[in-house]
């Protein structure tokens, strides 16, 4: 059973709290408790003793979830119970994070947004948590929450409500008396049941939209590690994590079909939104995804392409992914203290530029060496961007401009200058690994694309309403490392 929820910023300053009873501690109290019983909870995930849950009292546990997109910490205080699964608390906190994002229809929540909407967020929590547990009566669907907690009314609504008030005030009481009687009569006849919704994730009162719009965003984050083998790259392990987000603003209750072309990739067992239709035999085909969409933004599909098994099966060597391939060499020059790095950015019609390209260079400087050896990395030739030495030992960064054109071959050549005389027998400092970080729009890393978006039925398009559809592709690196 959950007792309270808290949202804090990265420095653990309280942003929002939702307490479920008079006995639930405020964040200040919890904070002192946590500091005295389990200070490791407050550390961030890169530290050694990082904890994400801990027992803070008899039968009380604190759980913490860090939302990467929002840069917020979510906390909850729950009572220990045997029937609770190991993932329940973390998953709930993650779900809440998602719900808030979808409710406000944002890509990222700012603290200001939360502060300005305290009342609304409190109500959202109230909807989602019932009897101290996640509300299982379908209240975890954003559409349902939107129905219970309407979004902020704007100026036009305010004006109309004022006018309405005015009208009411001027009305003659007797007239009202009559209405009252009429109402009483009519109330007797109305049934207690309303038209309940067709599907739980979509409200029957889905707001009316001026236009019918349906957009599909396909985002792929890839994690790959390569190693250089005879000046070629060989995949050590790799994985593409794809998400298909849909923003749907459609009237009525339409049946939509999205056709994905997987380009021969095996997307394994994907995660589907509840709205997706699955055949009775449990089979699912990405080439025909049929669903009645919830209103607004939601995650339709989440898949993962296993590059390792693909390499094994097809025998095709993957030596570049995400339009990039990288080579580097050590021991060049006459003192063999130079290194060269060359990046090959493929040309692709639909991708005009690479955004925020950054390379992290890691040299094999051991920590213990630091005292004996001082060195400097000097750049001899640099075709693009700038090079920055890092404060940490043996690290450097090659930072590109905001946009880099595709179809170019940036090269970086540098040498290592030893400030003191190189002690005999100690090894040369070499470039050991290079990590890349970038993103681009226009294509997915795996090549998966949306073949078609069809509205099969249920949508009536009037004269003045139009239907807009579209798909967007984006690729970003999660991990891209090349080892020597």
């Amino acid at each position, binding site marked *: 059973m959950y007792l309270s929820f808290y949202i804090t910023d990265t420095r653990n300053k309280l942003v929002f709290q939702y307490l479920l009873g*008079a006995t639930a501690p405020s964040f200040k109290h919890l904070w002192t408790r946590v500091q005295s019983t389990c200070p490791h909870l407050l550390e961030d995930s890169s530290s050694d003793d990082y904890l994400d849950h801990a027992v803070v009292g008899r039968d009380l546990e604190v759980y913490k979830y860090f939302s990467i997109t929002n840069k917020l910490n979510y906390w909850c205080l729950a009572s220990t119970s045997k029937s609770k699964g190991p993932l329940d608390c973390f998953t709930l906190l993650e779900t809440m994070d998602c719900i808030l994002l979808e409710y406000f229809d944002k890509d990222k929540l700012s603290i200001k947004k939360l502060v300005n909407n305290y009342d609304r967020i409190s109500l959202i929590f109230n909807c989602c948590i019932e009897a101290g547990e996640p509300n299982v009566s379908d209240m975890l669907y954003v559409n349902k929450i939107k129905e219970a907690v309407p979004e902020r009314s704007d100026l036009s609504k305010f004006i109309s409500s004022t006018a309405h008030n005015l009208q009411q005030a001027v009305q003659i009481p007797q007239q009202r008396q009559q209405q009252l009687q009429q109402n009483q009569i009519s109330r007797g006849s109305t049934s207690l049941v309303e038209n309940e919704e067709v599907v739980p994730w979509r409200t029957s009162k889905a707001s009316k939209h001026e236009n019918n719009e349906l957009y599909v965003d396909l985002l792929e984050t890839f994690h790959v590690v390569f190693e250089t083998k005879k000046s070629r790259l060989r995949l050590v392990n790799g994985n593409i994590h794809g998400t298909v987000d849909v923003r749907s603003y459609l009237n009525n209750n339409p049946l939509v079909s999205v056709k994905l072309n997987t380009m021969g990739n095996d997307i394994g067992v994907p995660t589907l939104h509840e709205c997706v239709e699955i055949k009775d035999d449990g089979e699912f085909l990405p080439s025909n995804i049929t669903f009645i969409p919830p209103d607004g933004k939601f995650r339709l599909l989440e898949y993962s392409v296993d590059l390792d098994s693909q390499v094994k099966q097809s025998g095709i060597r993957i030596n570049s992914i995400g339009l990039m391939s990288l080579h580097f060499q050590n021991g060049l020059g006459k003192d063999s203290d130079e290194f060269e790095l060359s990046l090959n950015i493929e040309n692709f019609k639909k991708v005009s530029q690479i955004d925020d390209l950054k390379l992290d260079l890691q040299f094999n400087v051991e920590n213990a060496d630091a005292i004996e050896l001082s060195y400097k990395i000097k750049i001899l030739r640099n075709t693009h961007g700038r090079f920055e030495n890092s404060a940490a030992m043996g690290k450097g960064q090659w930072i590109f401009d905001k946009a880099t054109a595709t179809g170019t071959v940036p090269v970086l050549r540098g040498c290592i200058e030893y400030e003191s005389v190189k002690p005999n027998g100690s090894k040369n400092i070499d470039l050991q690994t290079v990590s890349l970080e970038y993103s681009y729009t226009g294509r997915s890393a795996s090549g998966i694309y949306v073949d078609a978006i069809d509205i099969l039925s249920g949508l009536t398009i009037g004269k003045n309403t139009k239907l807009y559809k579209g798909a967007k592709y984006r690729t970003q690196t999660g991990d891209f490392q090349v080892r020597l």
Partner: protein
Amino acid sequence: MVDSINRIASALDTAKVITREAAAVATSKLGESSYAYYSQNINPQQLFTLLNSRNSREIRDAMKRIISIMASDDDSIDVQVYFADVVKNITTNDTKVKRLIHLYLLRFAENDPNLTLLSINSLQKSLSDSSSELRCFALSALSDLKMSSLAPIVLHTVKKLVTDPSAMVRGEVALAIIKLYRAGKHEYHEELLEILNFLMADTDPKVISCAIFAFKECYADHLELLHGHFRRYCKVIRQLDSWSQSYLIELLIRYCKQFLPKPTVVDKSSEGSLRSCPLPDRYNEIEYPLYDVVNHPDLDLFLKSLNHLIYSSNPAVILSCCNALYQLASPMQMKNTRFIEALVRTVTTTTNQGNKEMLLQTVHFLSILDQTLFLPFIKKFFLLPTDPIVVSVWKIQILSMLINESNVKEIFKELKYYVGSAHLPEKVVIMAVKGLSQCGRLSTSWESHVMKWLINHMESHNLSASVLDAYVNVIRMLVQKNPTKHLRIIFKLADLLAAQRSLADNARAGIVWLFGEIASIEFKICPDVLRKLIPNFPEEGPETRCQILVLSAKLLSYDIDNFKQAQNPANGDSNAEEYNQNHTYYDFSSSRISQMYNAVLYLAKYDDEFDIRDRARMVSSLFDSGKYEIVSLLLQAPKPTTRNDDFIISARLEIHAPEIRNFFKVLPWNTEISEADNDVRVGVALKDYNKYKKSFSSQSFISVNSARSFTSTSNANSAGINDDSNDGNGISGKSNINTFASQNGKKYRLQSLDEFFSDIPERKSKSKRIIRVEEESSDEDEDESEESSDEYSDSSLETFSSH
């Protein structure tokens, strides 16, 4: 006359209201943050005024402010002083304000039970509202008030609403059951169970979801209640809420273990063999290479129903499914489903740190039981550069679990890379070193291969003390297992000890200790090692000095024993007396080893460390006493070979969380099931409320195949699952309810609430009572309440002017 004055007054009032609203808008400039700014500037005194205003907008502003104060943990204003002013606004028509008041009550009701009673009447009235949402809200708000005096009223309400035509309200009833149950009144438990039983027979998935949740929370031990629903739930499971799915799976696992016979494993490895045995209690202990599992049809139904959940976006569901397969099926069945793949996918894609750690622990847990489950996915557990320490450590542990002949090369290479990466965190490197020792366990050749690599690496790199410690530990472990086969490595270590003066103290100490142990097998090299160590004794670190002392003592003890053994057979037992007399005692003065021992002892006696001085004294007194048997007992005691778990870097990183262990705790099968029990799972009568539903156009529906289609057809289907003739159920159910309500309705009189109100202080109750009376005669409609507030304005006008 009075009427016209009234009208003028109300018109004036409205004008005032409008200007005030306009002012509010002007200050707020309509933007969200400007509104927040406006809201923040409402001072405590203004809050009183706003809460008592007749303008719903002002009340709303005030409530928003109060909720903001609660949400921001602001100590400067005590919101509890507004209790009465807040609660009386529950009569408002503004649902948002109602909900905000609910939030307020949820938090503070316990602190002021008397004033809370003010709200009950209005809430109870909403229970019979025509809007199902309002009914739902009222029930939830009423049941959330944690007051024991209210329990009978809530119970009565619950009984009344259990037959509500709206599924939403019936679902809420199930949740109210939990709240009532938790209130801890034992006398209600029976009654609540009855209601819950009723709800479990509902046809609406939403109600089933809630009922399952209530069942799991309150009556999880009454598994027999699931008899009539088992088959139906298996079929509708994918229509339920994802949280309920995982609850239901956990319940059904327990149900199956309790009421279904254990599956039988049939040998299929050789034709015609009819061997079979019950599914072993421990995982992966089926002895047949090829087998079939024969399940009870109901168990099959359950396991099959899980297949539809494989696409769930809730990781808890995936985990529960894995648990079901782990508890109820054989490893082969587990592999045939794609849940392992789904589990691995969830592990790799989740960005939720906590979940990731738990899932990795799960993988580790399962791979201990059955290595083969995760063998196809080893590469998924290779480290990624951005993995946090916790994740990296668990990944390496999983890799070390999965090592076998065919993949050892690959994993060894990868682990080697981690060990060699200076930029990785220390704990990860140490874990990787530990992983290497697992590679060494495969065969003797791998053993020496790993050790050679470690020693080379140790020589050529500057490593931190804790990493070195791990190196030496691993080498020690591997050498000790099979010392005779690794003599070359031992020589190498001796060289290392002599050549590498810069080696850290703990590492040297470890190696010195190792020689003390090897002395029993390969005595010859040891004295030389000691000889080389003595000149530099003062320069060694404290741990090494201590170990050198121990080594010298051990060598001396071995030497004495060797001497005795050499003497004994020579003398034989021919002349025992002569032996006793002529028994040449071990010559301490001429023995080189004894001399070395003395030198070390001398040095140690004047050591800085008191520990070493102490030991020196202990050792010397042992030898001085002349009881060499005791010496050899003490110093030559065989050491148990260290296991991998013996050196644990950090308990948190290497031991499964108790949650995981609890979750996967194997439940015993019930062995006393009679055949007749089969009939208990015949479906029971269902409560179908579809007839209340208005018909709606069917064109917009997805086909029945959809993951969660809630069409009337699907409802009909689920009703039809019970192959018995249950056609009359709806009706029979209804008649049931009627008697149900009337039976119990007598006990609780709603009107008795007025007595509660007599407790409330006079001042407030008076004005409030006016409103309440008005409200009672009025309805939800807007114009209706406007009237009440109009009349109310008469009385409040005076108070207004007095301000």
